[in-house]
């Protein structure tokens, strides 16, 4: 099989065009090709509105691409595969406000014919992983933003995915909480042997977390370059950010993005 050699998760020549027919067609994504290895942490870095979320939703099987294909473990993705879970940027809209923290996590177990007792046990287990064991009976809206995103992370892990798709998951929380959550996700990634695709516009976050970074251009989005971060693991919230390699990489990426943005302005 050719797929076996092609990598674990392949994004092949994916295009997305909106509108068309009578209206003006907008090309959001143009010939995006990326290979993700099993167990890898890949960050997709791009400016706001460049179609990053669209790309991730296509990978997740939540929306269709106009052309191209996504292949996971040798199978083309046409609907959300059970081994892949999408974590939304807007955690407050993704959690169910009428369910307690525990019941939110239980959502993924309910359709599996598990006993109530077992569900409770499993929920406790996953909430413990994200440090929310004491908040099982709370409602999401009683928690802070960072805690809500932790609930969403626990729920995503409860679905026992092999691949986690993170759509700017830390962009709506404050800076300190963001650092905490980044370390939490890195820890869970290493412990669970996950493959992670992270979408972000935060250069610092991409460099700190990922093995590789794919830089997207603005609309129509193409992959401009892919860089290896080459930073040692486990990453440390403070130490890693002070390494020369970290600073150099961040410098190069920010310079690249700024330069492009200014070039765009001159064109316009």
């Amino acid at each position, binding site marked *: 099989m050719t797929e076996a050699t092609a990598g674990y998760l392949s994004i092949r020549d994916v295009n997305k065009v909106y509108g068309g027919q009578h209206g003006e067609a907008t090309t959001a994504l143009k010939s995006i090709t990326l290979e993700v290895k099993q167990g890898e942490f890949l960050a997709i870095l791009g400016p706001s509105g460049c179609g990053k979320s669209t790309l991730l*939703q296509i990978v*997740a099987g*939540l929306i269709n691409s106009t052309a191209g294909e996504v292949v996971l473990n040798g199978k083309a993705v046409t609907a*959300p595969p*059970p081994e*892949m*879970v*999408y974590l*939304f940027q*807007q955690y407050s*809209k*993704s959690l*169910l*406000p*009428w*369910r307690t923290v525990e019941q939110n996590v239980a*959502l*993924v177990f*309910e*359709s599996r014919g598990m006993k109530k007792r077992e569900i409770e046990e499993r929920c406790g287990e996953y909430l413990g992983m994200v440090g929310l064991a004491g908040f099982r009976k709370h*409602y999401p*809206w009683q928690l802070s933003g960072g805690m809500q995103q932790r609930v969403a992370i626990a*729920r995503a892990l409860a*679905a026992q995915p092999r691949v986690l798709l993170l759509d700017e998951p830390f962009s709506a929380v404050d800076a300190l909480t963001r650092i905490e959550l980044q370390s939490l996700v890195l820890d869970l990634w290493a412990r669970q042997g996950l493959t992670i695709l992270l979408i972000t516009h935060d250069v610092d976050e991409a460099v700190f977390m990922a093995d590789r970074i794919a830089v997207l251009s603005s609309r129509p989005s193409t992959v401009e370059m892919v860089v290896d971060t080459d930073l040692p693991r486990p990453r440390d919230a403070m130490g890693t950010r002070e390494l020369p390699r970290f600073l150099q990489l961040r410098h190069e990426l920010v310079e690249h993005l700024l330069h492009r943005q200014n070039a765009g302005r001159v064109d316009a």
Partner: protein
Amino acid sequence: MSIAASLTSGELTVKSPVRRKLFGDLARTRLSGAILIALLLLLWEVSAARGWIVSDNWPRFSAVLVAAYRGLLSGELAEILGSTLYRMLAGYAAGCILGVLFGLVLGSNRVLDWIIRPLIEIQRTLPSPAIIPPLILFLGVDDTLKIFIIMLAVFPPVFVNTYGGVRGLDETLLLTAKTFGLSRFDTLRKIVLPATLPAMTAGMRIALSLALIMAVIGEMISGASGVGNYLMSMQYAMRADSMYAAVICLAASGYILNRVFLRLERAALHWHHSMQAE
């Protein structure tokens, strides 16, 4: 010291803190609303007793209370009220079920929406009492007709709100259901239904008073039972006290039904922000 003087000097707070506290506290409780009602009823009583208004159609309020008490005790008024409430609740239930059903289906299925909604849009602009006379020809003058017209009046607000609720559902919720692989039925049951519940109950709350209105109108136009019919009979018979007694019983029923509804709504939507204001 007169209150007027204090008020004009603007020093009411300084000169009579006790008085200010008393009235201030009263104004801030539910009691203040009840006091206004009590005062108006007292005015009614006094105006009839003192002969400020002299008319056979203006009995004392106390006489009306006595009539209501006797009517309820003898079972006559109770039975009449009961038959009205029975039809009202039957029509209300039917209208709510249909409104929710159509709202959910048309809100989530575009093809059915295009086919059915124009018809509903026409139906809901029709004043319900206007179609009673033609409906009598088909459904007669019995319970079927009255329950049917109540249902017709209840349907639009429940439908419109449910439909709007489904249409306004956040995309993220539906994508969440998708990424966790929920079936269509589970998505409806566990996501769409609870998320739309606040909109549904808002519609049902409006519909509740409409149901009572239509129940009474239906009885006034046709049939031989219920409060609407009783009101008309008492008017012809010039029995003002019984007429007012029926109106008061109706008002009390409406008030109680509304309170029960709010209680239930609160229990069902305890998680919703609109319920956390107080």
